[in-house]
């Protein structure tokens, strides 16, 4: 079996303790959450931190709380917890859709939302979900907390705004009335990374027109959301023709690369196909949604 290079291990007892440990041990220290991205990389010796700071015992970061019109999720909340939460399934069905296809149930018992977002793999599902839901990332460092939009949080593939001596502590999801959301992923096999995935959130105005909409795509080289399609949809009544047009724009906006999962044209096609599918489902769910 492959094994990591040597390192020193320390367990953080509080968030502040974790931050001071990061400060003390410097850039050669790394935080480990669920460990399902970091440890395999360490076994391949692609990552070799000198210090590993274990934040798994920071139960203070393992929560799902409703605070007025915000759902607050602690960074150490496990995927399994997100999937099992009835409140999340009701408010943000996109999260449940995505969680069902993230890795596998055993990995979901360890992996965390914070770990996924900080890994920032371009094929990672929750980053798209958070962008679609216009979530905010709460980052704490020696100087206190700062709150970033996902756009500012996510700097690019494998890169986030979290500085070395900072910790992502919480993700905040704004709750919108009359909204629905959905996520769909094409994978080569259950548990695989996405070939392409799409997510959408739709809020309806009282007249049934689209009040707000966001569309995100996974693994096609888009950093933000598909704003062209969003602009097209806003203010109109949801409908198949509109979704087809949005799908086309999503395909145009994507910039995928060919790999073992498929060629560029296929991935672009999926951006189109999956955008239509998630818009349909998100709009239907918004239509059924009672409250925010």
């Amino acid at each position: 079996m492959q094994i990591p290079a040597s390192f020193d291990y320390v367990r953080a007892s509080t968030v502040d303790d974790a931050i001071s440990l990061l400060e003390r041990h410097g850039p050669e220290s790394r935080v480990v959450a669920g460990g399902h991205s970091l440890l395999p990389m360490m076994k391949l010796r692609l990552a070799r931190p000198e210090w590993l700071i274990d934040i798994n015992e920071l139960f203070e970061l393992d929560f799902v709380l409703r605070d007025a019109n915000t759902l607050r999720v602690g960074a150490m909340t496990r995927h399994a917890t997100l999937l099992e939460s009835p409140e999340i399934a009701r408010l943000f069905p996109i999260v449940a859709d995505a969680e069902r296809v993230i890795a596998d149930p055993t990995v979901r018992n360890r992996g965390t939302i914070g770990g996924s977002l900080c890994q920032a793999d371009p094929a990672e599902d929750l980053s798209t979900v958070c962008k679609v839901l216009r979530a905010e990332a709460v980052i704490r460092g020696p100087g206190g907390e700062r709150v970033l939009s996902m756009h500012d949080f996510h700097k690019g593939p494998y890169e986030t705004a979290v500085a070395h001596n900072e910790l992502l502590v919480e993700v905040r999801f704004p709750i919108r009335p009359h909204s629905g959301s959905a996520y769909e992923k094409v994978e080569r096999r259950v548990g695989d990374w996405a070939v392409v995935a799409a997510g959408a959130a739709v809020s309806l105005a009282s007249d049934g027109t689209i009040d707000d909409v966001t569309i995100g795509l996974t693994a096609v080289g888009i950093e933000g959301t598909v704003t062209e399609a969003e602009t097209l949809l806003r203010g109109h009544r949801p409908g198949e023709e509109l979704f087809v047009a949005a799908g086309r724009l999503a395909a145009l906006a994507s910039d995928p690369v060919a790999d073992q999962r498929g060629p560029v044209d296929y991935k672009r096609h999926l951006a189109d196909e999956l955008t239509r599918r998630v818009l349909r489902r998100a709009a239907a769910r918004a239509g059924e949604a009672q409250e925010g």
Partner: protein
Amino acid sequence: MTIIEERAANPAAGDENRPIGYGRIQRKEDPRFVRGKGHYVDDIVLPGMLHGAILRSPVAHARLVSIDTSAALAHPGVVAVITGQDLLGLKLAWAPTLSADVQAVLATDKVRFQGQEVAFVIAEDRYAARDALELIEVDYDVLPPVIDVRTALDPGAPVIRDDLEGRTDNHIFDWEAGNSAETDAVFASADVVVSQEVVYPRVHPAPMETCGAVADFEPIEGALTLYETSQAPHAHRTLFAIVSGIPEHKIRIVSPDIGGGFGNKVGIYPGYILAVVGSIVTGRPVKWMEDRSENLMSTSFARDYIMQGEIAATKDGKILAVRSTVLADHGAFNATAQPTKYPAGFFHIFTGSYDLQAAHCKVTGVYTNKAPGGVAYACSFRVTEAVYLVERLVDMLAHKLEMDPAKLRLMNLIKPEQFPYKNKTGWEYDSGNYEQALRKSMEMAGYDDLRREQQEKRARGELMGIGISFFTETVGAGPRKHMDIVGLGMADGAELRIHPTGKAVVRISVQSQGQGHETTFAQIVAEEIGIPPEDIDVVHGDTDQTPFGLGTYGSRSTPVSGAAVALVARKVREKAKFIAAAMLEARPEDLEWEKGRWFVKGDPSVGKTMAEIAMGAHGTVTLPEGIDGNLDAEVTYDPPNLTFPFGAYICVVDVDPGTGHVTVRRFIAVDDCGTRINPMIIEGQVHGGLTDGVGMALMQFIEFDKEGNNLGGTFMDYLIPTALEVPDWETGFTVTPSPHHPIGAKGIGESATVGSPPAIVNAVVDALAPFGITHMDMPCTPARVWEAMQGRPRPPI
């Protein structure tokens, strides 16, 4: 009626719930496995044991300029570092393969595939050994690799095997079977000919347990004990004796519990040899266990055949002939494991299950800069490739003739009265009732209803496909006059001893990797001599404890070793008759057998049970002239022919028109493996093979980039089906006993792996018929299916 009463009166006959012989019983090996008390190679810890790790080449083709091991040697815990140069001195740098080639144990001149063995570190623990790998500095002079097999024979292609005297190209062999001229004549006059290039891409057996070994060389006695993941411990012992110079009687090979083999654990890999060398050099036991990437990148892959196939028929659907030319990628060393005379294995059974007038195939094997192998993954020595080709061609013919593929097959299957059937490439099919099996599978599937459902769905734009395959296997290699592996005849031995109290031990030469030998072989003995299976121990996997034989692969355990066990039991039974006669003071010819006892004809109350006879044999009974005082026997079984299991499979798939994603909705498998010893185990073997088929057809592929980097080197990219990709299997059976096998049994271990991929691909192609698709190659991944839907299916290589 009479039979039932007799059985009821005879406790040794058992009953359905507790069969003394054939029937569904729980496996005897399971109690240890469910308690976590299985004993696998990596569970072995010997006093003073060291750990080895292999440094592997990061590139596919390069000249070795230099290796610096000094930093590794200086690393704490490291005991030794061995390089190819060290092995040259021991004359162990190269080892013979199972195909009359040589393979580098550690590279000396060049590396020839990514993942090739370059150096071996031996350390006090596995962590230190792994750490030291990073400290070895190797200077490679990178050479252009040969990756695209289609260009391997081009003039000017880099010569991979310049180690071989006089070698100027990458050609390994040409081999043919059948009659070329006759076949061409039939094709020339046929109404309809269908041609297609069919690719069976490179896949890997990927057992859950990787390969490994613990070598323990005892210098005073000069004796080697080698614990290893081997499907063929006896053959390994002989080969180790030849390679290492250690006398064969000083070598003991132990294959403990094996975590799946599927042909991956037939060959002798450099790692095994290095563990042995390491133990000799250090004087301590050495363990070597592959990681998963090492397993996927360096040990025996499977398939990698590019098959140009053609089928000829009359316009009303009588199939006349098949022909094929094959380009076979054997990787950097020719290390396929198959009977010596058959470098393309049994590919020439590509005539399938049909009554043909002519057939011809030609196979060309070539070297490329990829890992060696080719015969593995439950392939029955390449029957997988053969069946896949012919079943694709038959489906394409049905499409061309606008005939239902089931109907076309029913018209052309060999008829029961034609057996034994001699095909046009030299096989004698022993027995079969093909139409019965196909009709049964169609009935189970509700074939006509499925076709109706498909029509309705097509009208709605939904993509549903129904795929059929009919296969004939040829397993149980094989008659020694035709079949050997490196000169060793493919026979198997069995020894049976009945202890004085009537308990028994049977020792066999084949090696379970999960097939349940400890149960099945006990049942065979039980059936023959009427001792309950739980009273019979089956010993296997230790060359010091078992008779010689060639091991378990190619579905040969039941056909060959099973026959040996049945015959040895009959020998004991016959001997028991003479002892019973002495005990009963009767003449042997006056005794009659009923399961478990000999009795006096006409007076059933006067008789002796096997237990009584065993006590008699070891006791004070005056034995007849020429009868030893035991109840033991041994045999070596040389099969007169192979056995020919067959089956009819039907697969139903749904394809998502928007994404190309394929779902296997139903799979119906009707198998005929002759006499059925334990139906539960048979069903398990079939289920496993069907899952392999889903893997190969839909997702598995060992792919290489242009530089020769292996893109399937982890389970992240070499995809194994999970419980969510496979349906709840629907299995059925027919029973056509083998006429030449002592108990009429045929092999079952690989039938489903052979038979299922064409059924699945035929179903996918059938689903894509509205797009004008008549063929697409595996793996049918979403992307590749979508490309086919766009009218541009492409070969995977």
